[in-house]
């Protein structure tokens, strides 16, 4: 069975577009806002949604996403609550949904319970930032049993042996961390993305999405020539932080993401 994620990459390829993967922390600023925000992201052209499950100790995240996690936890976000959000999104949308979190909340919930309930809720896959491929056997096995994709991270420091493992265990796509460091906006895209993509391609022809420091249309456009997708997180989360209490948050988010999405299209196709 082709997953929603694989199908999306295939559709985009046929249109010569790249995937815009949009991250937001579920429950930020409050759990009731998440479903409308996801639908706004979709209207604006986001292709895949990373639904961040907040964790108390997010060591891979910079201050913007750390604050989002704190707000979400304070507002009562929980794994069960986020699965319920996914169910509600599924009633209105077929956009691929990827849970994005740290290992401990998933470990505590239980791999089997999470995989079964996530599948039933309409989730398509999962990415755990602090779960290395070496430790992932039990998790991958349960996710596979429920036809869920497992996305793993490849990093600038990954050795060829590690890239091979990451490529082998990843399904749906491979998430390429473009630079060492935590999540957050940067002025420029890392200079050596092309080299990293080339190394990864020697191990796999799975789609690659590049993230960490991607926050503007020009970044997205630059990466169009390198990979099948880009991930934008902190820029979206910052916008939610800045306008979380205003009535036009969805409209602002839509405008911002629509602009980003333009960068994923071939220049002649892009609406200026």
């Amino acid at each position, binding site marked *: 069975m082709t997953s929603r994620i694989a199908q999306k990459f295939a559709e985009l390829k046929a249109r010569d577009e790249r995937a815009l993967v949009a991250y937001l922390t579920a429950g930020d600023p409050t759990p009731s806002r998440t479903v409308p925000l996801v639908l706004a992201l979709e209207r604006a052209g986001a292709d895949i949604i990373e639904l961040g499950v907040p964790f108390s100790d997010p*060591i891979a995240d910079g201050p913007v996403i750390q604050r989002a996690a704190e707000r979400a936890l304070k507002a009562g976000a929980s794994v069960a609550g986020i699965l319920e959000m996914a169910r509600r999104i599924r009633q209105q949308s077929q956009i691929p949904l990827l849970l994005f979190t740290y290992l*401990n909340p998933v470990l505590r919930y239980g791999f089997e319970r999470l995989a079964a309930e996530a599948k039933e809720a309409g989730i398509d896959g999962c990415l755990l*930032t602090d779960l290395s491929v070496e430790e992932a056997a039990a998790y991958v096995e349960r996710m596979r049993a429920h036809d869920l994709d497992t996305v793993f991270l490849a990093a600038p420091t990954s050795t060829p042996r590690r890239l091979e493992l990451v490529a082998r265990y990843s399904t749906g796509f491979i998430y390429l961390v473009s630079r060492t460091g935590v999540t957050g906006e940067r002025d420029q895209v890392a200079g050596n993305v092309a080299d990293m993509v080339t190394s990864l391609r020697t191990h796999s022809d799975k789609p690659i999405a590049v993230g960490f420091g991607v926050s503007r249309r020009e970044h997205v456009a630059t990466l169009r020539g390198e990979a099948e997708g880009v991930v934008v997180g902190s820029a979206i989360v910052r916008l939610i932080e800045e306008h979380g209490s205003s009535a036009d948050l969805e409209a602002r988010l839509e405008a911002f993401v629509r602009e980003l999405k333009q960068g994923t299209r071939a220049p002649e196709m892009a609406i200026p």
Partner: protein
Amino acid sequence: MSSASAVSITSEPDATGHFGPYGGRFVPEVLMAPLEELEIAYQQAQADPAFHAELDDLLHNYAGRETPLYYAKRLSEELGGARIYLKREDLLHTGAHKINNCLGQALLARRMGKNRIIAETGAGQHGVATATVCALFGMDCTVYMGAEDMRRQEINVFRMRMLGAKVVGVSNGSQTLKDAINEAMRDWVTNVSETHYLLGSALGAHPYPLMVREFHSCMGKEARAQMLEREGRLPDAVFACVGGGSNAIGIFHAFVPDGGVRLVGVEAGGRGKATGDHAARFSGGAPGVLHGAFSYLLQDDDGQVSLTHSVSAGLDYALIGPEHAWLHDQGRAAYVNISDEEALQAAVRLSRTEGIIPALESAHGVAEAIRQAPSYPGKIFLVNLSGRGDKDIGIYRENLKELDAGL
């Protein structure tokens, strides 16, 4: 527990750093290859006599090893039970056992060509020891410390600064050790190519729990030999406080094969288990992952890490070192907890019977020995006095108001 079963227990991790089911390597991919590199560098150093010669020289001539094994005669006689010996790590340079590991890791960082050192600190003892070795080796040093701990341990903050370290206050979360480690890991993820993370406890991803234990295992080896020389036999029980667990694992390790020696780890009972304000992982926690290792973790039903409390900053941490989890599950070591109040009273008692003001962390180990001693006449207890109390004078004053008023 029968001594026969205990003898068969090994406490060596498997090739991927697991002590039984615990430990492992749970970090973002960016750190995986650097950890593999660190593991190889560590193994090479361990096999290199020149590395050990230099480390041993520094431990002896710079840090002041070996430390004395002291018979606490007045305390023992007052309790009228077990005879209590203290392993005097409080007499080491910088005032606690932490320097053992810092010297080892700094030498390792130098071998790896990394000249920038980062560290976390709770009570400040590990931060001071790290700042000290960085000064000694001319390395750049940044220490992350929770803002609440900076308030509790302001003298240590100044000591680090005087030694040339940059101290970065962390005001996220509980503003204690856990948050300082989060921030240190974020720095490491960013600057990993030129930076060594000098982790200060037997925590974190493999090879840290193993490496930190090995650099501290001198405590147990010395104490075991000293006890045999003094008493002609092994102690009946060994007591040590457990935050992350470095001083405890360092003194336990040599005794693990000695099945007749009870190993007792003392966690922070804080204000009492009923209040939730504690750091007693074995009575309130469940297995989970934090900062790279799988072990007993204080967490809520949704896997969020709980806020902990202890009067002693060094024990105020949500996860116990993975090897302790394994010793616990095998029944090789027992873990108990001592409240803030009991630790404070033990500190006063040790001060007045022996003229030794212990660190608040170490006072937890002393308190458990005091509690058990009357029931064990004829037995020998060994307590790891892992640090001295100078850094805690402010907290002692805050909590012992009648004494401060001269009453």
